[in-house]
C-alpha cells in the first residue's frame, strides 16, 4: 500500500499546521509573562512524564525503558535520565522555587525590587532608588541575583524596563527608580482570565483527545461542536455579539440546572468532574 510522497506529507502537514497555529496563539499570550527558557523546560518535563505514563498504560506492571522514551521523544537517554531525576527529586513545577525564580527574567527583577529588603525600604514601604552600577544594593547587583543567564546584561535589562515604562533613570545621579509598583507583567484580572481560560483550553484538548481515540464509536464521543458564519458585516457585529451573548447566558442557566440535577450533594471519592464550556469567537483575518 505505497502512497505518494505528496500524500505522505499531506497528513503530517495538516497536523503541523494545526499545531503551529495553536501554539503560536498560546505563545503570543505568554510573551512578556514567561520566558522561552522556562517554557521549554516545562514542556520537556511534561513530555517525558506523559510519555512514561502512556508507555506504562500500554504495558501495565512493567518498567518503562529509557530507550522507549527516547524513541517517542527523539531525545537521547542521557537527557531523559536527567529529566527523570529532576521529576523524582523536585516538587511539582508550580511549587519548585528554582523553576519559578527564572519564570520571566524581568518578573524576578521586579519581584526582588518589591520584596527584598536590600532593594525595598520597609520604613517607607517603597522600592529604593538604586545606583545603576556598584556592589551592595545596586541595580546591577539586583539583576545579577535575579538572572543567571549568560549574555543577559544589566544594560539590556535596564533598557527593556525603560522601554516598557517601568523605571525612570536619572543619568546625572546614575540612579534608577521603579515608577510602576503594580505588577505590570500580569495583573490580578489578567491572571484570573488566564487561569480560567487555560483551564477551558485544557478541557477542550481533553475532549478532542477523547474523541480522536473513540472516533469509531459515535456514542462514546463527547459533544463538541461549533456554529459559525463567514459572512457577517463588520457594522452588524455589535448586534451579532449582543444577540449571541444573550442567548448563551440563557443556555448557561439551563445547562447549570441540567448538570445540577445529576450532581451529588456530598463530595465522595471516585466522583467524576463533568461539565460543558461555551464561548463566542470572532475572526477577522479573512477581512484583513
Amino acid at each position, binding site marked *: 500500500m*505505497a502512497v505518494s510522497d505528496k500524500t505522505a*506529507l499531506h497528513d503530517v*502537514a*495538516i*497536523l*503541523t499546521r*494545526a499545531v503551529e497555529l*495553536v501554539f*503560536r496563539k498560546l505563545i503570543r499570550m*505568554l*510573551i512578556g509573562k514567561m520566558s522561552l527558557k522556562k*517554557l521549554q523546560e516545562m514542556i520537556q518535563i511534561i*513530555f517525558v512524564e506523559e510519555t512514561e505514563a*502512556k508507555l506504562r498504560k500500554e504495558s501495565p506492571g512493567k518498567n518503562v525503558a*529509557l530507550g522507549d522514551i527516547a524513541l*517517542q521523544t*527523539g*531525545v537521547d537517554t542521557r537527557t531523559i535520565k536527567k529529566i527523570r531525576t529532576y521529576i523524582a527529586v523536585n516538587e511539582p513545577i508550580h*511549587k519548585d522555587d528554582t523553576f*519559578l525564580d527564572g*519564570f*520571566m*527574567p524581568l518578573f524576578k527583577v521586579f519581584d526582588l525590587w518589591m520584596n527584598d529588603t536590600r532593594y525595598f525600604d520597609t520604613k517607607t514601604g517603597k522600592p529604593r532608588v538604586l545606583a545603576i552600577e556598584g556592589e551592595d544594593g545596586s541595580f546591577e547587583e539586583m539583576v545579577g541575583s535575579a538572572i543567571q*543567564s*549568560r549574555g543577559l546584561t544589566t544594560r*539590556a535589562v535596564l533598557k*527593556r524596563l525603560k*522601554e516598557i515604562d517601568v523605571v525612570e533613570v536619572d543619568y546625572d545621579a546614575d540612579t534608577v527608580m521603579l515608577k510602576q509598583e503594580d505588577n505590570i507583567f500580569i495583573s490580578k484580572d489578567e491572571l484570573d482570565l488566564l*487561569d480560567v*481560560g*487555560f*483551564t477551558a*483550553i*485544557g*478541557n*477542550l*484538548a481533553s*475532549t*478532542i483527545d477523547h474523541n*480522536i481515540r473513540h472516533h469509531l464509536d459515535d456514542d462514546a464521543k463527547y*459533544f463538541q461542536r*461549533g*456554529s459559525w*458564519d463567514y459572512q*457577517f458585516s463588520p457594522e452588524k457585529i455589535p*448586534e*451579532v455579539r449582543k444577540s*449571541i451573548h444573550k442567548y448563551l447566558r440563557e443556555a*448557561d442557566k439551563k*445547562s447549570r440546572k*441540567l*448538570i445540577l440535577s445529576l450532581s451529588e450533594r456530598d*463530595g465522595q471519592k471516585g*466522583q*467524576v468532574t*463533568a461539565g460543558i464550556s*461555551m464561548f*463566542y*469567537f*470572532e475572526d477577522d483575518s479573512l477581512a484583513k
Partner: protein
Amino acid sequence: MAIADKTTDLPDVAILTLAVENVFRKLIRLLLGKISLKKLQEMIQVIFVEEAEASVQRERPGKNVPLSTLAVMTGFDTRTLTKIKSKRNYMKPFHEEKRFLSEITPECSVLDVWESNSKYLDVKTGKPRVLPMRGPSPSFESLINDSNPTRGVTAMSFFQRLEASGSIVIDRANNTVSMIDKRYTPFGTEDQTENAKIGMAAVGNLVDTIAHNLSTTPDSGESFYQRGCWTNRLKKSDATKLRALIRKFLSKTDEKARKIMKPFEQETTSSDQITAGISFFYFEESSPGSGY
C-alpha cells in the same frame, strides 16, 4: 458547582505556571506519538522568538529589534538567539518545510532516510531496498544510526513500532526487513487527522477569545462570552446519562444558535466580512480537578 479553588494560596507566578502547565500537558497528551519532543521544541523555539520580535516591533514600529531585548524576553543568550534566527524555518510556516515534516517523529526519519538515501535504495528500481536486520551498512541497524543519531535508541524498538504501524514487514526466516508503506499518518486514519484539525481549530478559536478578553477591561462590556459550568460531584455511573442529556441539550442549543445567526449573514461574500460564531463542548475528568 465548581472545582474548589486550590490556587488561592499560591503566588501569582505559581498560579500562572499551573495554568500554563495544565494547558500544555493536555495538548502534549494529544500529540504524543504524533510529533517528537525534539521537533515540538524546535517549533516552539522558533515561534517564541518570532512572536517576541513581532511584539517588540509593534511597540516600536520601523526600528530594529536588538538581540539583547530578545534575550531579556526569552531568557536565552544572544548567541543562541542568533542560531535560532538563522534556522531555515525562521519566519516560514513549518507545514511547508519538507525537512521538518519528514523528521516529525523518529519513525518518520527512518522511513525518510530509507527512501531518500542512495545507500538504502535499490540501484535498479530506485525503491527502498530490502535490508538485513543487523550487520554492517546498509542494514536496518545502520539505517537507525543514520536516521536517528539519538543515544540509547535501539533497532529493536523501531522494529516493533514500525511493524505495528504497518510500515515494514519483517522476514524472520531470512532476517530481513522491507518497507511496505512509507506513509506516516499522524492519527492512524485520515478521519482522525481531520478530527484533530477541526479540534485544533476550535482550540485556536478559544485561545483567540481568551486573548481578546485579556485585551479588554472587565467592565468595558467588550469581552466575549466564555464560560463553563460543571460539577465535580458526578457519580461515575451517572456519566453516561449526563452525556446523553447534554448531547441533546447542546444539539438543540446549536440549532437555535444557527437560527439566531442566520439573519445577520450577508447574502454575498465580500472581503471585509467577519467570521463569528460559538463553540461548545462537553468534558469529563476522571478525578476532580485532576488537571491541577
